[in-house]
């Protein structure tokens, strides 16, 4: 008896992951918007909405780099930093004369573009390396960028822009404004980021990444990851392919950073240090390499967790660590995986019969 019931295209095969990802984002957006407007969301939670979106976007980008392209990148935060400070400077230069929505869009685009340029410049030496070496060099570049921005002074007045790496009293004419103040970072930024902008950014980055993965370029990126020699033998230029993934990844990090920077009135360069890069990597690894849905969930949970545990004071980082270890065990332990697979199979055979796959 073969009554092959066709699953809706969006839920079958390669589309399932995408549908789930988009649904999670849109449903959480709807619920949170409703909660915000009915006043059911605590101020702590509200303040976390934009940062969560930023981390999700940066993590999706990093997953393209680490999961799909297979290059261990330990400097993702540096691209966020570049995007953030580009956006803050642009938004500050434009000033309140430009409507905030236009300023936000322009700043995010600028942040993404500048971060992409940085990504490509850094990628040229970095992508000639492999494995651990690549990780070390991205780590080093992250530190370099952080140090550069920590020593950067940038101001604007009626005479135009003033810029210095040494002089911490860039002399500004009356009415001038310091946009970057060395280690103190950016101060007095207009907070123009919105949660909706964050959600739109996540959706856009998902579209870019998914469309890229399921295309000629995506196959080439994964082929170069799986077997470099074979990939070259079928005519795939490894460097160009890796650069595409690296560039898109830093572009997304830049956009995320821009949104992040415009969410706070002050932003210090030290925010985007090595720890932030590692945190992003943790989101990606725990969410599953190459698995965008997993990345979104892991990022949301792991950003919110330390905040929700604030009431436990000293114990919160301990619990955070335990949760990390548990997730690692759950996703990587062979015994637990086999057990999970069995459980899944049991459900699947029931489901399979319903789909008429068995005769």
């Amino acid at each position, binding site marked *: 008896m073969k009554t092959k019931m066709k699953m809706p295209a969006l839920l079958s095969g390669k589309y399932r992951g995408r549908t789930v990802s988009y649904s999670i984002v849109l449903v959480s957006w709807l619920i949170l918007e409703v909660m915000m407007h009915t006043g059911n969301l605590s101020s702590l939670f509200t303040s976390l909405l934009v940062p969560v979106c930023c981390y999700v976007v940066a993590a999706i980008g990093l997953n393209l780099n680490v999961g799909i392209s297979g290059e261990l990148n330990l400097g993702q935060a540096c691209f966020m930093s570049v995007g953030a400070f580009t956006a803050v400077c642009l938004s500050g230069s434009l000033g309140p004369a430009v409507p905030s929505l236009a300023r936000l869009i322009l700043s995010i685009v600028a942040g993404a573009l500048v971060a992409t340029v940085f990504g490509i410049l850094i990628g040229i030496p970095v992508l000639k390396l492999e494995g651990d070496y690549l990780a070390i060099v991205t780590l080093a570049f992250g530190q370099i960028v952080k140090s550069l921005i920590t020593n950067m002074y940038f101001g604007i007045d009626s005479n135009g822009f003033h810029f210095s790496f040494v002089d911490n009293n860039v002399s500004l004419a009356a009415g001038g404004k310091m946009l970057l103040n060395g280690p103190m970072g950016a101060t007095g930024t207009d907070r123009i980021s919105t949660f909706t902008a964050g959600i739109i950014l996540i959706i856009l980055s998902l579209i870019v990444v998914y469309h890229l993965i399921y*295309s000629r370029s995506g196959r080439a990126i994964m*082929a170069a990851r799986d077997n470099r020699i074979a990939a070259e033998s079928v005519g795939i230029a490894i460097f160009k392919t890796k650069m*595409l993934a690296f560039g898109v990844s830093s572009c997304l990090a830049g956009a995320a950073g821009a949104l992040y920077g415009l969410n706070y009135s002050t932003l210090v360069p030290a925010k985007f240090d090595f720890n932030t890069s590692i945190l992003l990597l943790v989101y990606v690894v725990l969410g599953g390499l190459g698995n965008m849905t997993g990345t979104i969930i892991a990022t949301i949970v792991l950003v919110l967790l330390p905040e929700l545990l604030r009431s436990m004071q000293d114990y919160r980082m301990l619990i955070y660590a335990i949760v990390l270890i548990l997730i690692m065990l759950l996703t990587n332990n062979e015994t637990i995986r086999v057990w999970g697979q069995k459980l899944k199979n049991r459900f699947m055979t029931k489901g399979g019969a319903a789909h008429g796959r068995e005769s």
Partner: protein
Amino acid sequence: MEENRKPVLQVSELGIDFGGLSAVNGLNMEVYEGEIVGLIGPNGAGKTTVFNMLTKVYQPTRGTIFFDGVDTAKKTVVDMNHAGVARTFQNIRLFGGLSVIDNVKTGFHGRITYSPLSAVLRLPVYRAKEREIEERSRELLEVFGLTEEADQLASNLPYGAQRRLEIARALATEPRLLLLDEPAAGMNPQETEELMAMIRLVRDRFHTSILLIEHDMKLVMGICERITVLNYGMMLAQGTPEEIQANPEVIKAYLGD
């Protein structure tokens, strides 16, 4: 050789040194259009090294390789593939994390192209080209009897099927010359029999010349029109299967004194 056939590959005085060791030396050979040529020799004779030089994985130390009448001295691995050389590997190299059909689709990378931007924006050109890639990949899978396995992970295929998939992927790059590195390794006599039929089919249907390394003498003598024998990196003999089988030097190299 027949006068009307054009040489696809012309190798002269080819040699490579690794440090002080000369792995291959003074190799001369041609492969003509539509020909099946065998490259044989005892283990360590330098056969795979020759393949690696022909595909530019190694840069030859001496000699020249002309492909389709063009000197390949400055070409890279990727250039060689675009010029029309495709290969399989002795130790199978598939893209294990990709599905069977996606492995074949990667083969079309250099042949059916569109930009990453048109993929991200899902432009009509993306849809048209992707449909073409899909159709032609399905055709190749059908030729190699892999239609049923199209959506499986390549790494989950049984050994023989992996070997067939590797050939399918190589053919997707539309080669003028296909290099097969021990295609029958690990196959039983019946599978080898099927493989021989498949190699002939590949030559006739895809209009490609084939150069193959193989230890299975039944296969080599059965399908190769000409054979080159290597020993210790030197060319030992060259000729038709009959000539090679009767050559005392070859017998000595294989069986010892």
